[in-house]
């Protein structure tokens, strides 16, 4: 009977309210599900982009003495443990007809798929696509050439090409053309790809390899592999796939995880708000029932049953809505993504049991929990309670306690964020996030009231009585509006945090790419079969470079591994005066690169990388001691720069000092700065003609690639914007739902206004203005909260999890645009429920309550 009077009848009698309650819970569940699903896609896309740029292999086996094929047999047992390996011959030779250096890359064409992504290139064998023509690539005399290279030299399918590899001359037949795009253009054209078995037999490398690329799932397996390797072989990280990359991937995952947590909070707020509104509006009915002898327990029980039922239905609806939302948004984004780079098929999103469980838990358990507090409150209602007088006095003391709670939360959060990580996990950081959210939520009623009061005068001036009523009505139903506003603020805060994360990650990636894929034209000596042949230019090349008319300046780099303490660090050298003028390194201290380098020249000092500075706790002004060819020497540190390309730690010194210290004037790389008026590509070809035959010089132009790489990452981030879209949609749905519920609550008040002569248009304008107040409040609070959340994310959680910070970067335009979207959307969100104003039954105002 109680269940019927209090729960069942209202459910069916007030279909709109029932629908809104279920919708509110569903939106809360949907945000959790949609964010979790979008996370999957974003993570995968980021992983793919990183693989595309850094290569998938995370280790490689090399040997100074040359590598024997037998090693592959020893690796065989590790296949079961998830280890993948690919033998590679990577060797420089000559394309005889033009005396041009060419790189021979021989791989196992059948098993190489794990390592090199052929999505970036397609091989054209012949017009007829039979298996036979494909298999022809495996023949001993077959090579595959990049289409651009072939065109440059007038080669077609079937053309002969004579290669000279380490003195062995063979005429090969072009049996495939590589249509490269994206990062595959990194090869600059001068590359010949062959099957590894064919290359071994054709050029007399039977049984020998340059290196073996490895994908090693865990560090434990890495040490197991090391144990079976011959003494001369060692495992290294590929230059591009360094520690930094792994950290970046982990950081991306952790940040997405944290954002999913925030989404969970948003969902919780939405559900709580919905259930609260739904129960509070029946306070009067409860009062009546209690005068008739209903017990508090009975009332409480009835509401809990309702919470459970609504929660269950809302969860199911929410999971469906969330999946649909994620699918829709990812599809829309997928349309704008060039499928070549990132395979973002929305079909690929999977509802994992974990996501389902989270969705059901948020919907059902939370509805139940949310029902408890207002149910207790409602069950305590006394029938004689007059809803006037005492209320205002109570409100004052409440707001003071709320401020106190908020301040306490912020203080606790601040203290927590200073605590160290626990077992490598930033537990305190995550809890600090919770306290920040709690603090802002406690402030919500005050913020809502303050903003409304602030807006009252301007709104009255601009919109007259309609504006005045709008600004006055929000604080009047503070209990409901403040929770709605807190939920919205959190949704907007999540949106801002997502935007900040994307912005910061993009900035971090940009710096990483700049260093990994340098923008300059490089001249490098060709390498031989084993790493021991690591070639160098004689210093004599300098004089010849001086004479090249289109070179503005060049910076001669070389380096070596040097013992430092019981570790090996890299000592690098370059022409500091050139680097100071033309170069670009992200500096940590001092700010200016040229200041650091000029000081180094003047004081015979060095610049060290951030990783070195952190590892050995050295800073500008400190001295380091290195063993040089003339014994130990002190070097003052004049600069610290950010270097993501080397984890060992780098000590960089001017070339003159390096030559003096180590008696070595060879050059490993010449960084060339061009005069204006010549393209990098033309310069590359001319340099190869000039220096190719004599020095086996290879020119690398990475500038274009960098653009391509950033394009790939931008596509990744496009998927991350799915999170942003979800946050915005949720924010908007939240406003619509809350306003609609508030309008239903106030049907009678609105009817009165209509009876007193307000037109439908004026009522609607008032409602839209009300949502603008809510929108402004939530935008302001959300912006602040988003910044604080991101700050904790980047400076506490990331720092504790990885020991380095990603660059905090505000994408101003993105954030401004997102805020504009949510604000305008909140206005529009006011329009939707304000249509209800048209259907208000005026006579209801005249009736008794």
């Amino acid at each position, binding site marked *: 009977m109680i269940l019927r009077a209090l729960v069942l009848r209202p459910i069916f009698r007030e279909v709109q309210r029932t629908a809104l309650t279920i919708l509110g819970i569903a939106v809360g569940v949907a945000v959790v599900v949609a964010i979790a699903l979008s996370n999957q896609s974003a993570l995968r896309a980021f992983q793919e982009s990183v693989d595309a740029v850094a290569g998938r292999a995370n280790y490689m086996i090399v040997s100074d003495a040359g590598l024997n094929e037998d090693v592959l047999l020893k690796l065989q047992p590790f296949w079961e443990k998830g280890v993948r390996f690919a033998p590679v011959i990577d060797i420089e030779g000559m394309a005889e007809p033009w005396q041009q250096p060419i790189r021979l890359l021989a791989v196992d064409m059948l098993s190489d798929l794990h390592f090199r992504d052929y999505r970036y290139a397609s091989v054209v064998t012949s017009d007829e696509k039979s298996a036979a023509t494909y298999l022809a690539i495996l023949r001993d005399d077959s090579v595959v050439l990049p289409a651009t290279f072939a065109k440059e030299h007038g080669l077609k399918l079937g053309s002969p090409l004579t290669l000279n590899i380490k003195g062995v001359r063979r005429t090969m037949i072009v049996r495939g053309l590589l249509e490269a795009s994206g990062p595959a253009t990194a090869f600059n054209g001068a590359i010949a790809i062959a099957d590894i078995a064919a290359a071994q037999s054709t050029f007399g490398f039977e049984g020998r390899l340059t290196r073996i690329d490895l994908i090693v799932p865990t560090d434990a397996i890495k040490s197991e592999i090391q144990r079976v390797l011959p003494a001369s072989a060692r495992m290294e990280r590929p230059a591009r796939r360094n520690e930094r990359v792994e950290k970046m991937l982990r950081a991306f995952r952790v940040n997405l995880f944290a954002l999913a947590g925030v989404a969970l909070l948003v969902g919780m707020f939405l559900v709580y708000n919905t259930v609260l509104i739904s129960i509070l509006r029946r306070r009067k009915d409860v009062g009546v029932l209690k005068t008739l002898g209903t017990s508090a327990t009975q009332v409480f029980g009835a509401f809990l049953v309702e919470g459970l039922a609504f929660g269950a239905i809302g969860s199911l609806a929410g999971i469906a809505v969330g999946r649909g939302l994620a699918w829709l948004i990812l599809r829309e984004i997928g349309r704008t993504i060039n499928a070549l780079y990132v395979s973002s098929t929305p079909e690929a999103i999977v509802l994992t049991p974990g996501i389902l469980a989270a969705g059901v838990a948020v919907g059902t358990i939370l509805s139940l929990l949310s029902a408890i507090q207002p149910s207790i409150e409602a069950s305590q209602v006394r029938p004689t309670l007059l809803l006037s*007088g005492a209320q205002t006095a109570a409100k004052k003391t409440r707001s003071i306690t709320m401020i106190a709670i908020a301040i306490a939360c912020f203080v606790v959060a601040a203290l927590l964020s200073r605590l160290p990580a626990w077992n490598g996990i930033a537990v305190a950081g995550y809890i600090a996030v919770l306290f920040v959210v709690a603090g802002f939520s406690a402030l919500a009623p005050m913020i809502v009231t303050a903003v409304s009061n602030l807006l009252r005068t301007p709104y009255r001036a601009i919109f007259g009585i309609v504006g005045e009523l709008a600004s006055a009505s929000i604080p009047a139903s503070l209990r409901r509006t403040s929770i709605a506003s807190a939920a919205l603020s959190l949704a907007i805060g999540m949106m801002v945090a997502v935007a900040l994360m994307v912005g910061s990650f993009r900035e971090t990636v940009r710096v990483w790419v700049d260093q990994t894929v340098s923008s300059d034209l490089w001249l490098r000596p060709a390498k031989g079969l084993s790493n021991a042949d690591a070639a160098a230019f004689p210093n004599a090349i300098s004089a010849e470079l001086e004479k090249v008319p289109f070179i503005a300046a060049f910076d001669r780099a070389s380096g070596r591994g040097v013992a430092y303490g019981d570790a090996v660090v890299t000592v690098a050298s370059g022409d500091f005066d050139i680097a100071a003028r033309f170069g670009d390194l992200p500096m940590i201290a001092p700010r200016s690169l040229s200041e650091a380098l000029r000081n180094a020249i003047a004081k015979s000092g060095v610049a060290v990388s951030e990783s070195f500075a952190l590892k050995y706790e050295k800073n500008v002004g400190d001295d380091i001691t290195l063993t040089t060819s003339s014994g130990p020497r002190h070097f003052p540190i004049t600069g610290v720069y950010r270097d993501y390309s080397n984890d060992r730690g780098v000590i960089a010194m001017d070339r003159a000092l390096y030559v003096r210290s180590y008696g070595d004037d060879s050059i490993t790389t010449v960084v060339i700065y061009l005069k204006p008026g010549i393209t990098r590509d033309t310069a590359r070809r001319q340099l190869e003609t000039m220096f190719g035959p004599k020095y086996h010089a290879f020119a690398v132009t990475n500038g274009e690639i960098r653009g391509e790489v950033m394009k790939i990452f931008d596509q990744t981030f496009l998927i991350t914007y799915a999170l942003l879209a979800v946050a915005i949609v949720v924010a908007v749905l939240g406003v619509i739902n809350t306003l609609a519920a508030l309008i239903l609550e106030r049907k009678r008040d609105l009817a009165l206004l209509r009876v007193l*002569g307000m037109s439908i248009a004026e009522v609607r304008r008032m409602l839209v203005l009300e949502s603008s107040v809510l929108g402004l409040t939530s935008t302001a609070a959300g912006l602040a909260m988003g910044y604080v959340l991101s700050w904790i994310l980047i400076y506490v959680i990331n720092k504790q999890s990885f020991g380095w910070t990603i660059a905090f970067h505000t994408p101003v335009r993105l954030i401004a645009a997102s805020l504009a979207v949510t604000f305008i959307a909140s206005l529009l969100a006011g329009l939707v429920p304000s249509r209800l104003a048209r259907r208000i039954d005026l*006579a209801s105002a005249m009736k008794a309550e």
Partner: protein
Amino acid sequence: MRIRLEHVTHAYAGSDVSAAVQVLDDVSLEIASGDFAVLMGASGSGKSTLLNLIGAVDRPVSGRLLLDDVDTSSLDESSLTMLRRTSIGYIFQFFNLIPTLNVFENVAFPLSLAKMPRSEIKSRVAEVLKEVGLGNRASHFPNELSGGEMQRVAIARAVIHRPPLILADEPTGNLDSKNGDMILDLIREIHNSRRPTIVMATHSERAAAYGDYVVEVADGKVNRGSGVGSRVSEKEPGLAPTPDPRLPTPS
């Protein structure tokens, strides 16, 4: 403002479980401009329904309803809004003040809607508040007032825009007899000084005595009674007010 009902029938649509309720059945009635008519009848007899129809809050199921020869059942929503805004004042049993506005703002509400200049609103509201004896409570909020005071504010709000028609639905229903008498005196005073047409619904004989005559409402029919004699003679014909010319009038 003259009121004329011609064969008005009204019923409330039933839900799928309850049957439709026939409230007014072929009612015809005329109330002359400047009259103070009292609708009397038992609870549930249809007094409020009749007031809602007259006040353009509800539309009759059938029949015509004319206010000064304008058929309100043929007006569109925005014309009805303008009619309510400029020509009708409402007084309710439950006062129905807007809780978020103070006394001054509540009274000023109809003028604010009509976008009257602020200075003029100020002087008019001050004048009317003095008239109802609340000149010193302008900045108070409704929850700081007693029932009688709230109803006086509601009366001030109902007359501030000088409407030619004032509708009152059980204005004393929620007040003790002392406060009730005070309110009825006030309404009578307003009728005497401004001569609007007033229609007041009540079930109390005591309240009914304040009107010019009684209209009995029972069983879906109305029956114009003999009038509370003496009052009728007090009335000076031709003094009925017209709507404030500065307010927009219904088209």
